[in-house]
């Protein structure tokens, strides 16, 4: 069904070529671009993410960071370029298929299923690994019970990573802000992604909450051994946990490299940090 194209290496765009040597990258974007309402929101975007890499996507407001996420998850179809996920072309896929292929995301403005309980939010994300049909559900056949119990156990396990198992039965909408953000990450992880996209995970958090979040992202990264791309304005978080950073401005990549390289890059200072000095 899914069109398989052969793996096209683009070594020039790899941020950290020495990492994951000998293994194919999890994500490759080649000359990705989209025109929204006559404006080129993102143009000529090249990025390769290694199998266990944490990459930060930074840039001033309106630079096109979230647009990149929307392109990766096929909320928008790119007008130009290719996205290879685990070496497979995602052309023509929709959001659902991209998720099945291994991309899970969180949202800038939290999007939880507010009226569902915390654990049901997680179990909903496991929908694609459950196989019992409607009849089994209505008649409560053994496969319903077996799969529901298994899903319940796994959901509790996932919640316990962020120490949230005690609030499993609370409605998701009633959780405090930080817990809602964590739940969104758990829900994304429940779909078994190979690439996790975090859209401003630290937005609205105080420094101690941000520090906790940093630990949690590291924990997730170590436990699941997955690639993470995160958009963030909190520089301490980005510089601390990202191995590679990609800087966007006006839809173009203006710099790429390790945190140290980015911090001393004159183009970044001019576009990003330089604005701060003027003000």
């Amino acid at each position: 069904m899914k069109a398989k194209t052969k793996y096209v290496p683009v070594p020039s765009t790899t941020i950290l070529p020495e990492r994951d040597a000998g293994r194919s990258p999890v994500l490759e974007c080649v000359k990705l671009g989209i025109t929204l309402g006559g404006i080129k929101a993102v143009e000529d975007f090249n990025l390769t993410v290694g199998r266990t890499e944490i990459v930060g996507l930074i840039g001033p407001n309106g630079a096109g960071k979230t647009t990149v996420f929307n392109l990766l998850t096929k909320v928008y179809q790119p007008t130009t370029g290719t996205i290879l996920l685990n070496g497979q072309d995602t052309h023509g896929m929709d959001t659902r298929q991209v998720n099945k292929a291994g991309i899970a995301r969180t949202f800038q403005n939290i999007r939880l299923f507010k009226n569902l309980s915390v654990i049901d939010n997680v179990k909903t994300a496991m929908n694609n690994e459950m196989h019992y049909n409607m009849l089994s559900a209505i008649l409560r056949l053994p496969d319903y019970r077996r799969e529901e119990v298994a899903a319940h156990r796994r959901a509790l396990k996932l919640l316990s990573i962020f120490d949230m198992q005690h609030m499993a039965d609370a409605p998701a909408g009633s959780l405090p802000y930080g817990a809602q953000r964590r739940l969104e990450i758990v829900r994304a992880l429940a779909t078994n992604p190979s690439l996790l996209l975090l859209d401003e995970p630290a937005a609205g958090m105080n420094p101690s909450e941000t520090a906790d979040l940093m630990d949690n992202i590291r924990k997730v990264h170590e436990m699941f051994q997955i690639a993470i791309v995160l958009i963030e304005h909190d520089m301490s978080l980005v510089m601390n946990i990202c191995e590679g950073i990609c800087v966007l401005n006006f839809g173009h990549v203006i710099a790429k490299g390790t945190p140290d390289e980015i911090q001393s890059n004159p183009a970044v200072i001019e576009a990003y940090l330089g604005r701060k000095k003027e003000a």
Partner: protein
Amino acid sequence: MTMRRLINLKRAEARKIYLTYAVVIIAYIVCQVMSSTKFLSSSMRGMLVPICAYMVMAVSLNLVVGILGELSLGHAGFMSVGAFSGVATAILLQGVIPFAPVRLAIAMIVAAIFAAFAGFVIGIPVLRLKGDYLAIVTLAFGEIIKSILNNFYMGIDSQGIQMSMLSDTTRLLPGGKLIIRGPMGISGIQKIATFPAGAILLIIALMIVFNLVNSRSGRAFMAIRDDRIAAESIGLDITKYKMMAFVMSAALAGAAGALFAMNYSTIVANKFDFNTSILILVFVVLGGQGNMLGGIIAAAVLTILPEKLRSFSEYRMLLYAIVLIVMMLATNNAEIKEFLSRLNPFRRKEED
């Protein structure tokens, strides 16, 4: 740990489900006893089956409106598909199956299948739409179904079933029988719908909806209702789950329609018009979206109310409207709710 209780249910939710079953069963027993001891007036006795049918309609529409979160304004259309296909089946089986309850059961199953098919066909265009647009198109389809049934003729003779549209061109052989007669509907129906059958259908409808809601499909329905974009991002097939809820709801409405129709000797398509669709929606909204027990109670109250107001003759509908407005205000007013809960000593304990 969690195996002991209803696998994935929160305790409060499980209690609500048991309460719903308990209320239905107790109400059934009370009504049955009152009706057999001639305590109920004959007009009230005649309303038991329609009330059951409306309750099932409320439960089925609640699946679409309360659980899936889409407004459907053509639910009476599915009821009429079920009514006509169910009654026609019952008439065709009259000679084959002499035992009425079995005939009724088969008729309701056939009705559910026909209505589910109608739901599927209508769902293909309708479920591509969202919100207000979806509501308006379901309204249109409800009217389309009514028009089709108003112009549909079906008869049976020795050569089998004959059908025609617009005018009666079935040309039945002598000895044949015209069953569906366009705008005249179906007449000469054997009234085989009984109150126990209605109660059983209601229990089955509740079981289907509750068990579905507490499964992966139900979680998907509610996830789509709460946040469509997030639901897509975790890999849910929006169209598939919307269709599943819509078809299941249509099937239950069809079975309810068959039950409803077989309580009367004549049934016409015009009975299932826009007003009926709205009436069912009022049950759901008044009872609380997603609240099955509320919808059931609202269906009972709003079906009995017009009968009870008969003594006010021409002011009847005016009073009905006033009572409806007062009930809507009362059930949605936080202060009145609090006042009522203060009056009720049991309610407080429950909340703790």
